[in-house]
């Protein structure tokens, strides 16, 4: 008679699996898993940027008037039944922001490797002590204090099971620390934007979000084998590419800041038509024209009246879009011409061009749909992808410039120079 194997219940299997995973992490001696953590954090940040776009597109930035609480509740204990209207967008944005903050903390600590263990243990112990102390002192806030204690306990336990790998390079650890402090600053900025009812802070919050996303994408890139192999693969002098990529990326960042400024004016569409602007190539912006534009707006949402500044801002945004499209096109063309169609940087540049084209279309669609929230949000998210792609292309071109093979340039050569393969380079 065959022996019947008894399977443990589902819950036990999951807990057992989780424990096994944690124990296996303690055995991790290399940073091989770190890249997945970095990629996942970058993806979560992209989702967060998307949700931030939803918040402004739905005009829900101040739907939750308090911070760090939500309508007096602790963020994590706010009842789901109350996630209505604009509250849904703002509250879920805050929740996902917490997740990104948590993931960024893990990523930053992981970059520090084994030495993070005592830090975690001490921080955990302090949190546990603070949580218990606050429970005794403020019994009315037991839930919050227990949450603090729980976080401390998790950190304390993690301090014993943290990956046992070597610290990453110093510059990577610095980047991790910068990411950590940026996410904290970003959370505080978002909170102050709410409590101080300040739109300017919202502009900084939105722009910093884009930079933070680029930073996390960069950290993820630095963990890949592709990045590590780059120096030995370098066969081309990229000095003529670097300024193109860097300047174009800077233009995109400026464009995103412009977009954030437009969104945080809460004035809806300051120009309702495209490609014309109030039926003209350049709209009138005198006082009478602005008065006429406002009189003719029959908005359902509670938008602010538009001003001449906002009309001009959108025109600059359009011109910048055209300039960026041409600049990215020029990057792709140069890469194609000098590196060939099959080179990874050419393909990367073509993908970048595709993203920028999609972004231009989404910008136009935002106007054609009367600033439909979903389209406007997709425009924000695609902008983040354009910046990240340009930023990574810039970093890669800079990296290649400093690669050992690329350092050997032909003297006094002003044109793009294709160097012999690194294997054929003379030994130093």
């Amino acid at each position, binding site marked *: 008679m065959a022996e019947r194997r008894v399977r443990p219940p589902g819950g036990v299997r999951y807990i057992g699996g989780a424990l096994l995973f944690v124990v296996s992490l303690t055995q991790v001696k290399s940073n091989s898993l770190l890249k997945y953590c970095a990629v996942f954090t970058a993806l979560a940040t992209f989702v967060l940027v998307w949700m931030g776009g939803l918040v402004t597109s*739905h*005009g*829900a*930035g*101040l*739907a*939750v*008037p*308090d911070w760090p609480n939500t*309508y*007096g509740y602790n963020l994590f204990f706010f009842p789901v039944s*109350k996630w*209505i*209207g*604009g*509250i849904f967008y*703002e509250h879920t944005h805050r929740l996902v922001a917490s997740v990104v903050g948590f993931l960024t903390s893990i990523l930053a600590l992981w970059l520090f490797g084994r030495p993070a263990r005592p830090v975690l243990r001490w921080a955990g112990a302090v949190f546990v002590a603070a949580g218990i102390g606050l429970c005794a002192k403020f019994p009315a806030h037991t839930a919050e204090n227990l949450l603090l204690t729980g976080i401390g306990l998790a950190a304390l336990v993690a301090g014993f099971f943290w990956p046992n790998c070597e610290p990453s390079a110093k510059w990577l650890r610095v980047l991790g620390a910068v990411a950590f402090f940026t996410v904290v600053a970003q959370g505080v900025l978002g909170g102050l934007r*709410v409590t101080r*009812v300040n739109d300017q802070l919202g502009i900084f919050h939105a722009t910093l979000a884009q930079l933070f996303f680029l930073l996390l994408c960069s950290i993820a890139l630095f963990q890949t084998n592709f990045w590590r192999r780059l120096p030995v693969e370098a066969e081309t002098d990229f000095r003529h590419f670097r300024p193109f990529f860097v300047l174009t990326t800077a233009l995109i960042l400026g464009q995103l800041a412009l977009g954030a400024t437009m969104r945080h004016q809460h004035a809806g569409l300051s120009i309702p038509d495209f490609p014309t602007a*109030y*039926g003209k190539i350049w709209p009138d912006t005198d*006082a009478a024209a*602005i*008065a*006429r*534009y*406002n*009189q*003719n707006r*029959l*908005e*359902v*949402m*509670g938008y*602010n*009246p538009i001003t001449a500044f906002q009309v001009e801002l959108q025109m600059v945004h359009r011109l910048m879009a055209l300039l960026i499209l041409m600049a990215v096109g020029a990057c792709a063309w140069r890469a194609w011409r000098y590196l060939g169609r099959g080179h990874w940087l050419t393909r990367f540049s073509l993908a970048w061009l595709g993203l920028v084209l999609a972004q231009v279309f989404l910008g136009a669609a935002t106007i054609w749909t009367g600033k439909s929230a979903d389209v406007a949000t997709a425009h924000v998210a695609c902008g983040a992808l354009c910046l990240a792609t340009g930023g990574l292309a810039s970093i890669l071109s800079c990296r290649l410039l400093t690669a050992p093979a690329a350092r050997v340039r032909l003297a006094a050569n002003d044109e793009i120079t294709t160097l012999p393969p690194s294997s054929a380079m003379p030994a130093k």
Partner: protein
Amino acid sequence: MKRVLLSLTVVVLAGLLQRASAADVSGKVTLKGTPPPEKTIAFDDTCSKLHPTVATTRHYVVGQDNGLANVFVYISKGLEGKKFTPPTQGIEINQEGCNYQPYVSGVMVGQPVIIKNSDPLMHNIHAMPKADGNTEFNFAQPNQGDVNDSKWVSCIKSPEVLVKLKCDVHPWMFAYVGVQDHPFFAVTDKDGNFKIANVPAGKYTLTAYHLKAHGTKPGESQEITVADSPVTANFTVEVPAAQ
């Protein structure tokens, strides 16, 4: 005794004189032209249950004989340097059926505005003043029956036409409050009529401002002279030409 009688006589005479030297200013604001059709508000699930009928925007509310409602009429010149005590009785702005009632109202600087939530759901009240001295504010009224009568007075301290109130939870909800440092203002009723009571004798500029018809323009103005008898001042507001 003589002194008391004399004082009483002076007070009564002063009162009578003051009464005699003030008059009501009334009139009608008429809309000229055909306004564009209002847009239907697409309520979300929770609000549509509270609002069984179709609701629209309230850009041009036109009544009998083209009378235009929601016009803020106020004395814009002629009262400089005079001080007036704000009424202690406040006006009410109610959040009801996921809309503000009334849409346009007027208040004196220092007069309470009682903000009330009659809906069984959460609203936030976000005031967006522009004038110097006024502070933007945003607070929550999560429960039905929540009332606040102090926030407005603590934040709105300067005259402004018009301060916007909005709900960020329900972005179609907005209302406007005209703020003056004197009590001589009114909002036109559904048929465009208004009445400003007990305006002291003198020469004034009376202004009628409609949010949509005037936009960033200051509104329509006319000179009036108030003496002993009631004054009638009518306004005609034109629908702006399409761009």
